[in-house]
């Protein structure tokens, strides 16, 4: 099936959960990623049970620090 991951069309096997997708996309540190699925932020506790569907739009959002340590 086709997903749009961070704006890019990607073909993946059917039936993957969000957690499995994170693993497949080689997201090294899933704890530092928020996931938006079709415009809504997905609760972390639901990563395991949420099965992706054809044409889903997924955004991986990363924690990023910045200018300086206060």
């Amino acid at each position, binding site marked *: 099936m086709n997903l749009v991951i*961070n*704006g890019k069309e990607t073909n993946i096997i059917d039936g993957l959960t969000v957690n499995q997708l994170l693993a497949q996309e080689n997201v090294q*540190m899933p*704890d*530092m990623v*928020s996931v*938006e699925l079709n*415009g*809504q*932020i997905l*609760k*972390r506790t639901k990563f395991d049970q949420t099965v992706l569907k054809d044409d889903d739009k997924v*955004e991986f*959002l*990363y*924690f*990023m*620090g*910045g*200018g*300086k*340590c*206060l």
Partner: protein
Amino acid sequence: MSLTEKQIERYSRHIILEQVGGAGQEKLLSSKVLIIGAGGLGAPAGLYLAAAGVGTIGIVDSDKVDLTNLQRQIIHHTSDVGVEKIKSAENKMRAINPDITVQTYQTRVNAKNISDIIRKYDFVIDGTDNFPAKFLINDACYFEKIPFSHAGILRFHGQLITVLPGETTCYRCIFSAPPPANAVPSCSQAGVLGVLAGVIGSLQATEAIKYLLGLGKLLTGTLLTYDALEMNFRAVKLNRNPNCPLCGEKPQITKLKDEEQAVCDLKDCKC
């Protein structure tokens, strides 16, 4: 307030803009912006806001300039190494534009002091690195209803979002709580391309000026991400999160608290 002849000359490229004009410039001169962190993001933001004639600029930082800062924190010069960052930043901003007032706060923001500091300002720029400070700024701006620009940078990537508290998507709508200890590398551990701070900090200053003048469309409900290697900007639409612990339907956070410092726990961290 009416502009002097010198001011009309200094700000002529603003004044000539139909959307700014003399009235807009006067508005900037009577506006107050707070920059939290005189580092990579705060440096270009401070310089541009000073040049733009934002009348009062507050700057919060507790550190001294370190040699490792100079690769990206362009408000500090080699001769400033060892000098308080707020002092160094104040000197540069005043040198660019003696019209402005610079308020300095030699401190770190915490749950006790942040509300009193931000309350005096029209807009806040988050130029901090560590996540407890980013969450604290988000929460304090929510309780005080002060708009702010959040930003982060790491390696070759940057991102930012503007938040109108209570109206648009906040930082906790996206990330409900700081990441676990050592889950996210800091700039000192992972590195950052210096110029990235200039790009993102300048965008934060742009948002501040747009907000103050009521111009255009703010970067609200949208996280702008920048990939310097691909030279690609993406605007990721992010709706408000009904489960947000701060501004959601059932808020669990009702007062400020200091989050645990989970990331920069290296003893010699010099982000």
